[in-house]
């Protein structure tokens, strides 16, 4: 058994809070890039949000995008440099709020890019505001009485929504709240990159992740929140695979 830091993950401390799932997802993406031997031709596009410093942590080319625009930037890169492997790394605020238009249209066009979507049901970097994926009844600084159907509407289920389109080739929702889920997430990310390498089109992996700080929970309680609350609203599974 050998378990070491992947070469694509720089040996630096991250700014993430204790128990945050971003570090796990960063490592999994880096492991897949290492396994596939594509580091020298991989270009990532980073979001605005907690993962904004992705370029400090990944040892491959990363372009920082305007808020919500990684799929648009990735589209441009992939069309100009079709031999590169292009991925976006986005949170729920970036992908499902301000960047929803870019996400839907990139998926609908079947752009040959890979989207890594980290869903922690809240705006992390800005201090815990309600996100499109915040659960019903969940407290946030902008839904202090809990998210309600009348005032705020229900959580947006990105995989289910995109599965209605013909463009995407691979959509899967996974989590990083248990070791088994982490292994499954690595397989899903690998498969999403392989789809792109094979020229199949748009692939997206939604990762349910922990945000202990903005949920006002301990890391242990945050893991339980993902396992008990988030998975009930956002069921794990493959939504499209062709």
């Amino acid at each position, binding site marked *: *058994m050998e*378990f070491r*830091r992947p070469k694509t993950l720089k040996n630096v*401390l991250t700014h993430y809070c204790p128990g945050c799932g971003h570090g796990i997802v960063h490592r999994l993406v880096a492991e897949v890039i290492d396994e596939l031997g594509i580091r020298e031709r991989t270009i990532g596009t980073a979001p605005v949000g907690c993962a904004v410093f992705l370029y400090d942590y990944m040892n491959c080319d990363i372009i920082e995008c305007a808020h919500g625009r990684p799929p648009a930037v990735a589209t441009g890169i992939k069309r100009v440099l079709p031999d590169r492997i292009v991925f976006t790394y986005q949170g729920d605020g970036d992908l499902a709020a301000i960047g929803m238009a870019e996400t839907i249209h990139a998926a609908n066009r079947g752009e040959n890019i890979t989207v890594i979507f980290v869903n922690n049901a809240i705006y992390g970097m800005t201090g815990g505001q309600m996100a499109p994926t915040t659960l019903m009844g969940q407290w946030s600084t902008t839904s202090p009485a809990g998210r309600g159907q009348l005032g705020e509407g229900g959580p947006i289920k990105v995989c289910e929504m995109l599965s209605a389109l013909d463009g995407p080739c691979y959509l899967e929702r996974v989590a990083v709240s248990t070791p088994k889920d*982490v292994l499954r997430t690595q397989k899903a990310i690998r498969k999403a990159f392989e789809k792109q390498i094979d020229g199949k089109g748009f692939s997206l992996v939604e990762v349910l992740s922990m945000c202990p700080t903005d949920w006002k929970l301990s890391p242990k309680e945050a893991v339980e929140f993902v396992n008990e609350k988030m998975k009930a609203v956002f069921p794990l599974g493959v939504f499209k695979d062709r």
Partner: protein
Amino acid sequence: MPQICFYAEHCKGCGLCVLVCPHQNIRMSEDLNEHGHPFAVLVDPARCTYCAMCGRMCPDMAIEIHEDAPSSQKDAKAATE
């Protein structure tokens, strides 16, 4: 012989490794590291099965498993506090 290495300086003390260790063989230190966090330490190296569940759940790459023995004194020290 595999070697499990805990890098105290990378640990933020979240305790996810403690939560998932199937042998309850990890605890948090009473001391703080240079960043002010308690850090994960192995309770009993002999009970570790090198399953790497702790490392896979660690968001900060503070735990590694090496197939060969650690090459430096620093690694050896990190492995057992």
